[in-house]
């Protein structure tokens, strides 16, 4: 029995290490993570509609069925990306996530406070390279700094009641996500 003590203790310590490494690596190795689910329906630097959640499930689990959603998978390697979203009458929000699902910025129609929400998404390096005068003319545009080169922009609009669905959808169809050209 005595010779079992060391393997058991060593096994528990090893288990703890395996656990910690597993948890820390999970966002980077999970195969069915949000990005790969969205990559199946969307293209890079373009807006794609996300199907409504249904009895079969949703593209993204645990998404709110009261919202219409669209996604833009961005890639800043070629330059900044410009995002335009016309807010609806109720609640419109734009959320930003890195490639591995870390949320880093969110804005809604009220905090944007304008008739067309315009955002310039760029890396810290691209922002630093922006000419001074561009910074001035960009004063009424919102600059969002992305900690990663790739990521997800989730655009969501509340449908307050079923009748409003088509109207909200027509607004959401006008959302744009364009790479530098």
């Amino acid at each position: 029995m005595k010779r079992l003590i060391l393997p058991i203790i060593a096994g528990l310590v090893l288990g703890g290490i395996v656990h910690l490494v597993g948890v820390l690596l999970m966002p980077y190795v999970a195969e069915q993570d949000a990005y790969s689910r969205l990559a199946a329906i969307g293209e890079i630097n373009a807006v794609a509609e996300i199907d409504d959640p249904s009895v079969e499930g949703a593209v993204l689990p645990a998404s709110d069925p009261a919202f219409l959603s669209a996604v833009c998978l961005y890639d800043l390697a070629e330059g900044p990306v410009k995002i335009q979203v016309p807010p609806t009458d109720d609640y419109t929000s734009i959320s930003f996530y890195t490639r591995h699902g870390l949320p880093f910025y969110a804005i809604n129609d009220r905090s944007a406070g304008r008739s067309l929400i315009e955002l310039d998404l760029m890396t810290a390096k691209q922002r630093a390279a922006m000419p001074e005068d561009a910074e001035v003319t960009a004063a009424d545009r919102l600059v969002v700094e992305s900690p990663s080169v790739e990521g997800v922009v989730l655009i969501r609009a509340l449908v307050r009641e079923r009748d409003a669905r088509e109207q909200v959808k027509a607004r959401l169809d006008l959302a744009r996500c364009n790479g530098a050209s």
Partner: protein
Amino acid sequence: MGAPSSHRIDRPVRALLFFLTLAIGAVVGLGLTWMTTMRGYGPTAIRAGAWEAWPKAGTEDADPYARAALARAGELPLELADGIAFVAATDDAGKPLDGRCDIRLSGTVPQARFWTLTATDERGRLIDNAAQRSGFTSPEVVWNRDGTLDVALGPRARPGNWLPTGARGRIVLTLRLYDTSVGLASRTSDAPSMPRLTTERCP
């Protein structure tokens, strides 16, 4: 050093103990990881009655357990600047929510620009029902005269705010508050007062 004969016995035993170590390590490590990412989003939950929320999971400071659970489920969290989601799988008495029972949600909802209430099965899928209703939004719900709320959940149609549960076994409710200051609470002691959940009658 032992006699040569004892060496011959020792080697297989040693190998066995080594594999035992590896086996314990793998089972404990993977088991712990599975358990901690299976339910909820890590240790930073705040609780209010039967409701649970993970405000930190929707921020840049999300802890590794929240990130692992979200990545594994394939979800993107509701960002805290956007809103906060409260999830309930039991009633206030701790009894699992059963879609075959009549359940009442009553009380006040924390201040928010909008909120939505959604019923799903335990795997997060919407519940099929003839009324085509999977939840309520704050503008469409009917309020009591004193500003409180009553929602009847159950398989049979009821007057007022009725949320069909399609006679499913286990159900899960999610109350999402949008554009709210509630998320600033990061401890259970600061948690807002949430609506009560009572199981009224079971068949």
